């Protein structure tokens, strides 16, 4: 039998005009019964490799002609899987199908968040760069708030005009300047310590 089946698939193809041999008729009848049983859901557990190959081909041919219908449960499962795959969502628990609209929303959510973050960050950067700089240290506000004796400044007001006979008395003038600036430094340090 196996040899005959092997011959059926791998042997020489008989001329279509010749009458089928009795063996061929018997084989065709038996294969037809096998196909009928398979379509009825009673596929025999054991069959030859040639019969299995032929049976698969017959099933495919039948399916392509549209005469094969899925059961309602199987059809729903296939649709759900396709929808999940389309929206990139996790498999729904309990078999509920995720709506396509919500799935699209989930897919675009990261981009919406990123876009909003971009706009906020761009606005913040623009504010940081375009706003006028705050008064820096030493600007008029700071100068007005700090006592004059705390600041480095020309010594003209302290020394006054230098007489000709005192032109070379730089040492004495420097002593005066140093003493004044030391007082200012101490006052500043004490003043800052006293500031809460």
């Amino acid at each position, binding site marked *: 039998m196996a040899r005959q089946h092997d011959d059926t698939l791998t042997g020489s193809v008989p001329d279509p005009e010749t009458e089928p041999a009795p063996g061929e008729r018997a084989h065709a009848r038996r294969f037809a019964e096998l196909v009928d049983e398979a379509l009825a859901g009673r596929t025999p557990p054991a069959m030859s490799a040639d019969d299995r190959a032929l049976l698969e081909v017959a099933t495919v041919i039948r399916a392509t002609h549209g005469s094969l219908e899925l059961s309602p449960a199987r059809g729903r499962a296939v649709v759900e899987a396709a929808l999940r795959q389309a929206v990139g969502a996790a498999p729904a628990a309990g078999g509920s199908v995720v709506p396509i609209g919500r799935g699209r929303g989930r897919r675009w959510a990261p981009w919406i968040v990123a876009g909003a973050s971009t706009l906020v960050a761009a606005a913040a950067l623009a504010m940081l760069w375009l706003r006028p700089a705050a008064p820096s240290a030493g600007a008029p506000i700071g100068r007005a708030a700090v006592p004059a004796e705390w600041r480095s400044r020309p010594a003209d007001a302290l*020394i006054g005009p230098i007489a000709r006979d005192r032109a070379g008395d730089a040492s004495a003038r420097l002593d005066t300047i140093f003493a004044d600036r030391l007082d200012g430094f101490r006052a500043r340090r004490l003043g800052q310590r006293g500031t809460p």
Partner: protein
Amino acid sequence: MNHVNVRRSAAASPGAGLAVALAVALGLAAGCSAERESGAPGRGSDAPHSVTRVTDPSDAPDLIGRDLLVALAQAKNFHHKAKVYMSDGNLAAATASVRQILSLPFPRGAAEADDVRNDARALLAKLLISQGQLDEAARTITEGLAQTQRESFFVANLYTVQGEIHEVRAAAADASGEPGRPAARDERHAAIESYDRSIQINQRLQSVLMEER
């Protein structure tokens, strides 16, 4: 299942990466802005500046700080050293000591720096005059006047010493006899011009100081 997760992570990662990059850029910009507001570390502050520190009037860069006092104290020391040398009759060593004041590092922008250096130049020129180095003395004054940033009583004093140099030159020209008379006259004119400039500066500054009071 796996391909679904891969698709999810692929969709979320560009947005997450972009958000992280923007957050980093925002942080850097904020840091730069804070640094721009805080300004450069000034001599008036003794504590290190923080980029997140709020501007404080007591942090103004022109505050008297340790650096300024150190520079003034060093100048005092050189002056004292020069006085000792002068009392010992060692004018060359006294000159060298005063000359060192000119190279003392002062805090950037310190108004006292000009005053101290100009006063040192005046003393240096007088020391050079006393040693007969009139050209060197004149060069010392000229350099000081060229480097000065503003009018001050110390600049006026430089003009005064410049006038003295011209007077000494005039006296030397007179001493050479009749041929030196024209040069002596020119030197006296130059001395008068220098004194006039000194007087004018003193008058302007005194007017300003009177108005401020």
